[in-house]
């Protein structure tokens, strides 16, 4: 549970697979699988933020949900705080639920339209915390303040809010029980930049104060650069690169990471015109039918023969940095002791 540096691993994901069956024909027979997550391994240290980025449909949400056991895993294991989540009984799961929360990508779909905002935010409190009516209301107001929702809105229903306001209701609810670990699935995608900043600052403050651990799923690379300690890049069900923030942004190794970083639009029209982009061409493969060899070989600007034959292993290429790409050699720890 501890690595060499004595840091505690709160979440250990090993060879995680999550496949969804495809049924076809008149008989609705099982004809294949969507390999949404296909053999992913990483750790999240206590008190850190791991960013998870990658193209739409590459399996980020599925990965986050599987870690919180919102699905039964197809294969692999997830250990949280040293215990395998698959071994939890329903009662144990109920007990640990408050300590692990998720902010969902689709705010509308995750909020009950018939409950007021106060009831939605307060619901986890009713279920898991014994508090008086007044304490409960205080806590609800405190949470609304924290995410920048006006207290006067407490008795409104979700449809009476704008998209960004609804997203903040979901965040307030996830924070209600002081969780230890939160999977944030695109928590700020629907917010304007100032409120994004407010929410990100809030997440950081809570982390400083309470030692929270986050898996931060986002396609917003500038926000991930701000909040994450380390970043995992996913492509078609697999993690292709995992590195510290500075390593990844200053010197991306995997050709997919390089393309991703080059495509970020510049918030200044004067710069925008000159930016150099790596535009990916080639077929986007489907997770039901991934290509032979490396999953990225159909679009990779640096593709080699071997890439179409062999799936590259996810290997350490530098201290604290893993890449799945044939361009890089595995790192030899011996060199380091010599230096």
């Amino acid at each position, binding site marked *: 549970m501890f690595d060499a540096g004595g840091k505690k691993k709160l979440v250990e994901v090993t060879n995680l697979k999550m496949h969804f069956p495809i049924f076809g024909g008149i008989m609705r027979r099982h004809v294949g699988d969507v390999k949404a997550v296909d053999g992913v391994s990483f750790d999240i240290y206590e008190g850190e933020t791991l960013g998870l980025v990658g193209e739409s449909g590459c399996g980020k949400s599925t990965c986050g949900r599987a870690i919180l056991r919102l699905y039964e895993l197809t294969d692999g294991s997830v250990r949280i705080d040293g215990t395998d989540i698959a071994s939890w009984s329903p009662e144990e799961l109920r007990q640990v639920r408050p300590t692990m929360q998720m902010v969902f990508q*689709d705010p509308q779909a995750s909020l009950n339209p018939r409950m007021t905002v106060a009831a939605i935010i307060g619901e986890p409190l009713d279920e898991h915390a014994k508090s008086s009516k007044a304490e409960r209301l205080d806590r609800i107001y405190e949470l609304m303040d924290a995410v920048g929702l*006006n207290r006067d809105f407490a008795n409104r229903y979700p449809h009476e809010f*704008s998209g960004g306001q609804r997203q903040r209701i979901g965040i307030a609810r996830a924070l209600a029980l002081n969780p230890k670990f939160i999977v944030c699935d695109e928590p700020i995608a629907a917010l304007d930049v*100032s409120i994004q*900043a407010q929410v990100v600052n809030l997440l950081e403050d809570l982390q400083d104060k309470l030692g929270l651990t986050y898996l931060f799923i986002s396609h917003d690379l500038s926000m991930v650069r701000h909040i994450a300690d380390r970043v995992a890049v996913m492509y078609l069900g697999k993690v292709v690169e995992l590195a510290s923030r500075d390593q990844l942004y200053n010197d991306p190794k995997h050709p997919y990471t390089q393309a*991703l970083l080059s495509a*970020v*639009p510049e918030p200044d029209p004067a710069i925008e015109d000159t930016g150099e982009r790596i535009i*990916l061409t080639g077929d986007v493969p489907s997770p039901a039918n991934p290509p032979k060899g490396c999953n990225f070989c159909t679009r990779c600007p640096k593709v080699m023969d071997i890439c179409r034959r062999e799936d590259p292993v996810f290997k350490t290429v530098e201290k604290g940095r893993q890449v799945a790409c044939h361009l890089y050699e595995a790192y030899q720890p011996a060199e380091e002791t010599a230096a």
Partner: protein
Amino acid sequence: MPDGALPVLEVKNLKTVFRTRQGEVHAVNSVSFDLKPGELLGVVGESGSGKSVTMMSLIGLLPSPPAEVRNGQVLFGDRDLLQADDDTLRSIRGARIGFIFQDPMTSLNPVFTVGFQLMEPLRKHMGMSKAQARKRAKELLELVGIPDAAQRLKDFPHQFSGGMRQRVMIAIALACDPQVLIADEPTTALDVTIQAQILELVKELRQKLGMAIVWITHDLGVIAGIADRVIVMYGGQIVEHAPVRELFGNPQHPYTRALLQTIPTVHGGRAERLRVIDGQPPMLGAQPAACPFRARCTHRMDRCNRENPMRVAVGPDHDAACFWHPETGGERDV
């Protein structure tokens, strides 16, 4: 886009109010703007500032009650859409004005396949046969970058990822080659590479079909890359309007200026703490009698507490609703 071309869409003094149990919410106050053929008008602004409500009011998408469009005109062709009956609106919406909703899950029907939902407008508005519609639906899915399109037509929305659902919405809105596309945060769930692909597609459609677009987003990077003109909303009003370069290079309203300072970047230095605009947005409980931004404005003057500033010209095709003058630091001469 040719200068001086007649607008395809013209909105004048639009006002929308919600009646709720706790009283009225003045979500949109006297909003006016126009849209020229082939142009892309960007809309930015604080969360809750009325961007979505404005656009939904235009084409009669808000249920009434609780919404009430109290005032204004929406000229589309030779019609005022606010006076049009439900049937007319329905046929315009599907075919001539495409709409991409902010929340894909609420606008995609969970009990129908994605293919059915793509084919329906094609059959209804374009008179296609089932086979033609299926072929076109597959093409549309491919256009928005969804692999294995033929197979995926048979899937239900919950089997798609967040970004894929959003792209289905885009495909549906584009299905009938509309004259006007209103896109409400259409790429929030998309990563940059797919977003770039969608933006490229949109550019092409503008050139090929002369489609005019209203693009609501909080992503100023996207605005910088694709918009011709931009309107900035705050507290239910348009507070600034300018051509894109002018807006980024010479912002006049204190809200716009603050907004531009809050953006983090992937290049250059990384701030320890992100900047925010301090304070709370206004409550919108009544018709504003003073500047809606005054409580958070660092340049507030006496007059701002007494009067709600009108939009005044501050440069060519550039206007702002503010009494403060950034160059002199004093009061604007209005």
